[in-house]
Each structure stands twice: as structure tokens, then as C-alpha cells.
């Protein structure tokens, strides 16, 4: 229960922000907080709260897995890499061959979210394959 107290500000913030399917479970000295946030900024806010409770996330006593709900109507995503091109691969995995590239800032078509990590996309040039979801931001 002590961990739930330590991260109470975080779980309270998640409740206030309307995170759905919120699950807070403690097991073997680690607190697992899962849920789905309505927007990426809600997720970012929760991570800021986490950072304020446990600076630089060094305690190893929390696994915060907040997904961002991407509406089924979203068909366009923007490539939000640091500056480089984003690889589009034949399958979901960095061990898969690269079949195309999307430029930083380019808006491409989202075909489906095959997993939390890998989304199936298509560029305007017709290159189709899997890209890492961390570098894709849904277009409103």
C-alpha cells in the first residue's frame, strides 16, 4: 500500500484527467498503473507528475503504461522524429527490411494500428509498411 501512497498524486491526476480503464495494481514491490488517456498531452502531464515524485524515474518501483486513445476516424499522421527520416518497414520490427522512408514533418496516411508500437502507414508515394508509433502524431 505504501507505493500507492507514494504515487497517489499521479493516480489522482489520472482520475482527474479522465483516464479511462485506469488500473492500479501493486505486485512484488512494483506499482503498475495502466490506462488510456484522451490526448497525448494528458499522457505527457502524467509523466511530469511521475518525474516530480520520482526524479529521473530511478526508483524502479513504477511501470506507468498510459496509452493514448487514437480515434478510429484518424487517417493522417505526422512524422515527429527529432529531425531525421522515419523508416517504413516490411514488418513490425527493426529487424525487418526498410521499404520506404517518410521525411521529418511529412504527413502520411495511417492505415491501421497493428500494435501499440507499430502502425501500418502509407506515404503519398505509395510506399506502404510499418513505422514506429513513437514518431507518429495523429493529425486532428
Amino acid at each position, binding site marked *: 500500500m505504501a507505493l500507492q501512497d507514494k504515487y497517489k498524486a499521479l493516480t489522482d491526476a489520472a482520475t482527474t484527467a479522465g483516464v479511462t480503464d485506469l*488500473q492500479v*495494481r501493486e*505486485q*512484488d514491490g*512494483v506499482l*503498475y498503473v495502466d490506462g488510456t488517456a484522451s490526448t497525448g498531452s494528458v*499522457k*505527457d502531464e502524467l*509523466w511530469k507528475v511521475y*518525474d516530480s515524485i520520482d526524479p*529521473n*524515474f*530511478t526508483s*524502479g518501483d513504477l*511501470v*506507468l*503504461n498510459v*496509452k493514448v486513445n487514437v480515434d478510429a476516424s484518424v487517417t493522417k499522421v505526422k512524422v515527429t*522524429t*527529432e529531425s*531525421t527520416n522515419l523508416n517504413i518497414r516490411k514488418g513490425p*520490427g*527493426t*529487424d525487418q527490411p526498410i521499404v520506404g522512408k517518410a521525411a521529418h514533418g511529412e504527413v502520411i496516411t495511417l492505415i491501421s494500428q497493428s500494435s*501499440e*508500437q*507499430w502502425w501500418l502507414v502509407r506515404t503519398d508515394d505509395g510506399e506502404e509498411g510499418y513505422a*514506429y508509433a*513513437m514518431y507518429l502524431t495523429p493529425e486532428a
Partner: protein
Amino acid sequence: MKITKVLMAVAIVTTTGFLSCKPKDADIKSAVEAKLNAKPDMSGTMVSVTDGVATISGECKDETCKADCEKLTSEVKGVKSVVNNLTVPPPPPPPVAVTVDDTLKSGVNDALKDFTTVTAEVIDGVVTLTGTIKKTELPKVMMALSSLKPKKIENKLTVK
């Protein structure tokens, strides 16, 4: 005609006789309480009886216990009907699922591909991070790794 009258009189007398034999609400209450309290799966049992209608409340271990209690109550002499207000606590959440190492390792490799200063080791679901990272990039790495459902993330990164 006479016979009918006699029969009616007998009927009335018999009914009245039965009514007077009807158990009192307080007695029904005690009888129901005795039966329910004998059940080990029950706690906080409360019984009230009004005109033979027994209302039972409290917490039952599960749905079977809830149905049993209702049946036991209905079997008590004098109970006309049962209002079952017993509650069953929600089931405990399922245990946390941890990704198996092989899947976790490939997920970690995918996530860290562009963070060349970070090294990760995966053992029994625990991801141990060493190396260096920029403060601005740290949340991105942690977010990506947390979504892979590891058992734990041991962050030993030096933040620049």
C-alpha cells in the same frame, strides 16, 4: 343452502385459526438470522421482516452464496417473499501480465534503436538501462519501454 353456510363458516373459522398460528415477524426474523449466521461465507448480515416479507442485506462471498442465502430465507416458515439486497464484492483485478523476455528484448531493441547512448539488458522481465541520456529524451525512452509491459525498469542512466 344450509350446507353452503356451514361450509363457509368452517372455512372462515379454519382460515382465522391458521392466521392466528402464523409466525410473528420477529420470530421469522430470528429464524432467518439463525440460518444466515450459520453460513461462514456471510458477513454483516442484516435481516428485517415486515408482514412476512424478509429483506436480507450484507456481504456474500460470491453469487452462489447469495443465491443460497435467498433460498434458505425463503424456506423459513412464515416467509412469503424475500427481498435479496445481499452484495458480492467485485473480483480482484487479474495479476499483472509481464511480457516474455524474447518479445520484450525485441521490443526494447526497437524502442532504443535511435538512442545509441543507451544500453539495455533484459532478464526475467526486468529491463536494466545503462549509459547516458539527455533529460529531454528520458521520458520518451521510459514511455516507450513502459508500453512493452516489463516487470520492472531499472534506470541506471546518467542524465546529462
